[in-house]
């Protein structure tokens, strides 16, 4: 299974529990590539990571995705042939 890139966010009280972070870091094949005070960016197989986070009730998991600034400029969808 191909790895995906996911963002985990801690919603619990206080600081992020070290034990939770350790469990994510120790997930086979998972790599924590970035972090902030309340979040981790993890490259991992989706299934095992979701299963792990399901057991961590204070965490939210989502695939990392890209957002754009909305643009109103007209655009060509198909060039002339």
């Amino acid at each position, binding site marked *: 299974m191909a790895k995906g890139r996911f963002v985990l966010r801690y919603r619990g009280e206080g600081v992020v529990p070290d034990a939770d972070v350790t469990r994510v870091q120790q997930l086979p094949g998972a790599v924590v590539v970035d972090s902030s005070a309340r979040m981790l*960016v993890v490259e991992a197989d989706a299934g095992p990571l979701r299963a792990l986070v399901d057991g961590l009730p204070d965490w939210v998991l989502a695939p*990392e*995705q890209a*957002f754009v600034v*909305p643009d109103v400029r007209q655009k*060509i969808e198909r*060039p002339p*042939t």
Partner: protein
Amino acid sequence: MTNGAESGQYVLLPRQGLRAKGTTASPEAQEFLRMADAPGPQAVAVDGGQVSVQVIDSIGPDGAKLVELAPEDVLALRAQRPDLRLVPVVYYQPAVAPPQHIESGVTGKGAAAAADITLQVVSKKGSAPIANAFVVAFVDFKARTGAQGVTDEDGNVSLALGQASIKLQRLYVYPLDAHWSIIKKNLTVKTGTQVVLTPLDLGYTDGLRHFYGNAAEGVGAGVTVGVIDTGVAAHPDLVIAGGANTVPGEDPKDFGDNGKSHGTHVAGIIAARGTPPTGLRGVAPGVKLMAYRVFGKNQGSASSFAIAKAIDKAVADKCDLVNMSLGGGQPDPVMKAAIDDAWAAGTLCIVAAGNDDRSPISFPAFEDTALAVSATGRKGTFPTSAAAADEVAAPYGTDKNNFIAKFSNVGPQMDLTGPGVSIMSTVPGSYAEISGTSMACPAATGAAARAIAGTPVIKMKRNARRTEAIVKAVLAAAKPLGFGPTFEGLGISEAQ
């Protein structure tokens, strides 16, 4: 009292979660949800009276209620009871594949080889060539076929249109700065054809200045506003108090413009301190402006992680309002959590509804812990030759010169509208005219700053109650322009 418009079904919930309990719901919200456990008519207290609610079903004494409400009562509840959430009932249907369709290309006559046509874009002022203008040439507008490109230093752009001379249904030119955009229809072009753009006049009354004038110095003082965007450039009209760059791998202190100008334009709409005709003035020039760059250098997209991190940073920096002129894509639980956490910490996110031509409001604007903003335009606040002229569409307001921009998304989660058609603002080293809910959003954010500046709300403890008070003050300042709630929410802010 109803005005004859049909009632709609909504789920009425406490601000957080499905049940009103503990510290997550106000005592008033808990009391109402407990009282309204049985089907039948109920009343919700609002300032100066009450709103009639027909309870259809309940998921328990302290739980969410399925209710029916008249449109005006929806507006009253949203404006005056931000401790309660009203979510339109959504009926899901099986997904079906859209029908296939064919887009036809432009075929050159005779020989198959395509020919390029070189157009030149010049300024009306001295015929100076205009570089970096985005030129879009439609041979068939409906089929979206044609060619596009960006002008070089000589103002030239080479377009592969397949013929040495061709009739365009539409030609759009969007300059990077300093000039009005232009639309031309039914124009025959060939190499050497010149397109002449008119320079911006900073003393012109555009849509922003029509609705908000030129604010006095200091308007908005005491309010801290964060701009989560492409960064904000140093500019003579802008005072940037601080910020951060949350793009992975980039300097955290580099919150300057990423080369796309968007964030600098947004910031100017909120807080520019210039004086026309040599500069521009934003809606609330006295605010403390914070810049959070979430788009990498010259990048057009930002990661959900960078955005969520920027929201956290804005909360940590004690921003009262956060402007997010971005969105689209799939709902993201992590970004929603960041917006919810901001709400719980006393910071309100105000988000552009999106520019997908009357499509449903984009994520995250539609989230109930953010305010969604549509784009209003006004005839006479841009040249009739500007590209924005193409965005005039029904519905028109009580004043028939006002309209909701054709590009603006719409929906029942709309909270406010703001001027977003052909708006002049700051860009790196210059000024530019741009349209979008991206521009309407900071207009609404600036007006929100006006609404809360100098009020007791600013001194409240930073928690959900504070955010509820901000929302109440912001929405109380809104007045409808006559488009209807789906298009404008409670209307446009008239905060002074």
